[in-house]
């Protein structure tokens, strides 16, 4: 025989776990979307950047 307190506890536990999974699932989808929208591209090393644009000293 389940007491009302225990029943409520089960309900809170069920809602709590469902809430956490929902939160994490949305997070999961957002990360996937992020990867799709902004895939990794090789970032240019700093020296290349200066070779192309010139350093501050050279500009001055």
């Amino acid at each position, binding site marked *: 025989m389940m007491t009302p307190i225990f029943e409520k506890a089960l309900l809170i536990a069920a809602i*709590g776990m469902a809430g*956490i999974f929902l939160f994490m699932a*949305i*997070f*999961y989808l957002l*990360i996937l979307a992020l*990867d799709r929208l902004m895939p*990794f591209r090789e970032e240019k090393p700093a020296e290349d950047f200066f070779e192309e644009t010139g350093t501050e000293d050279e500009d001055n």
Partner: protein
Amino acid sequence: MQTMNTLLSLSDNLRTFWSYTGFYNAEPEHLIMILIGLVFIYLTITKEYEPLLLIPIGFGILVGNIPFNEAANLKIGIYEEGSVLNILYQGVVQGWYPPLIFLGIGAMTDFSALIANPKLILIGAAAQFGIFGAYIIALQMGFAPNEAGAIGIIGGADGPTAIFTSSKLAPHLLGAVAISAYSYMALVPVIQPPFMRLFTTRKERLIRMKNPRVVSQTEKILFPIMGLLLTAFLVPSGLPLLGMLFFGNLLKESGVTRRLAETARGPLIDTVTILLGFTVGASTQATTFLRVESLKVFAIGALSFVIGTCTGLLFVKFLNLFLSREKKLNPLIGNAGVSAVPDAARISQSLGLEYDPSNYLLMHAMGPNVAGVIGSAVAAGILLGFLY
């Protein structure tokens, strides 16, 4: 006659002085707690169990249990309004310290492992069964719902979250909950491995996971912003902890606030850790701590760690049912979902290396490990939403 009077006066003064000393006011409970504090300090120094926290906690236990004449209104006890200790303790009671620690944690956490393999975030959710399992067990053992919630959060294996939640739900259990949470976090290398062996086969322990992809800086910057917005809209009660976690992470990843990030993960987190550990230790005064309830809290806390570890492991096995052979996950990373950063992830690594000396799992285990931090803070938010 005058000499006699002087002697009598001196004797009275000495008697008063004696009544103020710790020797006069000492009860066996004080000595037991002082002994516990000394054991904490000894184990921390010799075994290096969570030294940054357990040394302040252990010393705080000593300070909090020095017997004194409470009726004299000396304003030195942690529960005496206006005392220095009481003022410092407000950071725990009012929940100021845990978010500041989360700021520092955010500034030192690299979420790349999670962003590179986002399904690992679900392991961080599954391991939170420990929290709700302990919550139900605590209710069955006769605790009130708010107390059960405070005890359940021990299963999150995250000290600041446990302190934050118990300070709101059951401040009278705060000492027992905090000591229990930090003790079991220190004992993770002892608690988890037997269950990791029990719930995995040798073949599963040898699974090699694919190297994670490279994560761009843009993704790393957007991750905390998305995390904040998601938290704010879905679980607003988790905002004090998760908001600060993501803020700290943005300071780290933005690349333009290096000084702020260094302060958050350096001097700030160190200062708050000292204050938090010391005052939590001092709050364990014999009269409030040495009770049967505290023993029950410790027992349920141990169970919550075990439940969280097992559900994390089993969930990885469940996920593997749906994954292709080359994408399968090594179930040894499932334990890391309980949080306890980074010890739980290190255990995945060391156990994996035991079976295959070239199978490095640390990077993979860091994913569920940091997801566990987020998961336990979300669970805290949900418990506060229902029970506060």
